[in-house]
């Protein structure tokens, strides 16, 4: 009777998770664990699914705990395939938690067992996971570094190159297997790895393949991701018109998919692209659209970013009233969110604008004094503060062979 109810609870958990209700699924799996079972294979399956459910719920500490239980259990009962799967899941979870070294060990174990069992599907999946770990590792080291923009430290380059190699290895197998969905995923992440390595042409080729597969499957989210990634790569190739075209398609799909946050991101990218094209009217149009959505989503950082961009675009057009309005708004928001460097950037902008409008220095001594302090701390007058105030935003020299900086 007890056995039956554990199994029944687990089956209901599975049904709920498959239906997309992980939260409810977790309750059933946990109830199943409470009831308990002597069948260790059933228990292993429950732990594994609990781990995955918590992973999808972004509760990674819990996911780690259950995948670890599953791994121990699989080893206890000598279930090699089960051990491989548990190792892979544990590896993915460790990656998200930033524990890259252990993640690599786990994913490597997944790979080794799959090869031992001559399990091609498992081997390919382990290679994809390894690629993801090395990609994250490279990105993480780069973010933490204090190197100059455009200079990729060796450890970052090595990790990213390894990621690219694993994705390529994965692609060889999944192409043999004719698994188009897996090919799509590998092309997407391979493209992103080439992008970080500064191989923008290769990035474009990979994202074009990703796009093709997304269309085959009618997967509009993947299609939208490909457009966005293609836009980013074309920016670095200096082909701004093409980038704008891809960002426009991103925007179109974001609207169809009713994803406001993605729509905002697309507007922001378009605003920046039209700035590069020196079409400031269009830039303003898109930055205003971005601003409206940022306000709607209560995204203060996005709002500040929009105001900063709008201030710049209006300055470029010589509309100083609007420029001052947005520079002041940027200052206000920077204060609100406690963005000290954003605040100083806004002060700099305001003092610049006041100078252009012919206001005397003496009218705002304190502001100018503070600006000079900032100016002196900058290397070669480069507006560091402006860069640091923008999360996910970069100011960089337009040399395509250089990789993006990682601020």
């Amino acid at each position, binding site marked *: *009777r007890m056995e039956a109810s554990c199994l029944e609870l687990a089956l209901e958990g599975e049904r709920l998770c498959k239906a997309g209700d992980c939260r409810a699924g977790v309750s059933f799996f946990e109830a199943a664990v409470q009831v308990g079972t002597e069948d260790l294979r059933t228990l292993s*399956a429950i732990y594994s699914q609990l781990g995955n459910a918590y992973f999808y719920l972004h509760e990674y500490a819990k996911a780690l705990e259950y995948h670890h239980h599953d791994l121990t259990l699989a080893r206890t009962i000598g279930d090699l395939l089960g051990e491989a799967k548990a190792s892979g899941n544990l590896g993915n979870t460790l990656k998200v938690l930033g524990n890259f070294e252990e993640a690599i060990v786990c994913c490597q174990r997944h790979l080794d067992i799959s090869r031992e069992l001559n399990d091609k599907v498992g081997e390919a999946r382990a290679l994809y996971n390894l690629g993801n770990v090395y990609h994250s590792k490279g990105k993480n080291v780069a973010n933490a570094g204090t190197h100059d923009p455009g200079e990729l430290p060796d450890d970052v380059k090595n990790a990213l190159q390894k990621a690219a190699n694993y994705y390529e290895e994965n692609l060889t197998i999944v192409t043999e297997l004719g698994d188009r969905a897996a090919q799509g995923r590998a092309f*997407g992440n391979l493209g992103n790895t080439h992008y970080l390595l500064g191989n923008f042409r290769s990035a474009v080729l990979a994202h074009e393949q990703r796009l093709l597969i997304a269309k085959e499957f009618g997967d509009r989210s993947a299609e939208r991701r490909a457009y966005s990634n293609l836009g*980013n790569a074309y920016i670095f190739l200096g082909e701004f018109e093409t980038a704008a075209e891809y960002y426009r398609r991103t925007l179109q799909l974001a609207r169809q998919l009713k994803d406001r946050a993605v729509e905002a991101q697309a507007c922001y990218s378009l605003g920046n692209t039209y700035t590069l094209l*020196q079409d400031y009217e269009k830039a303003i149009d898109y930055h205003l659209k971005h601003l409206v959505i940022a306000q709607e989503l209560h995204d203060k950082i996005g709002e500040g970013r929009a105001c900063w961009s709008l201030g710049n675009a209006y300055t470029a057009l010589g509309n100083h009233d609007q420029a001052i309005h947005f520079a002041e708004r940027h200052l206000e928001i920077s204060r609100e969110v406690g963005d000290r460097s954003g605040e100083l950037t806004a002060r700099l902008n305001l003092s610049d604008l006041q100078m252009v409008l012919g206001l005397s220095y003496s009218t705002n001594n304190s502001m100018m004094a503070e600006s000079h302090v900032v100016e002196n701390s900058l290397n070669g007058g480069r507006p560091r503060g402006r860069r640091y105030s923008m999360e*996910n935003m970069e100011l*960089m020299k337009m040399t395509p062979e250089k990789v993006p900086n990682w601020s």
Partner: protein
Amino acid sequence: QPLAGGQATELQSKVVPSKQILHSDNMEMEPETMETKSVTDYFSKLHMGSLVYSCTSKRK
């Protein structure tokens, strides 16, 4: 007046430097894949058919 104009030009090039670009580095990654297990895998491998039922009823 000419001075103000000159300043405006200077400011414009300072705000949007021709050699610098604004770039949003919002890279979009593909989803992770997790390995899946199911409580029915094991049963369906051992015996085909409605084993879950027979197994549970046997235990009752």
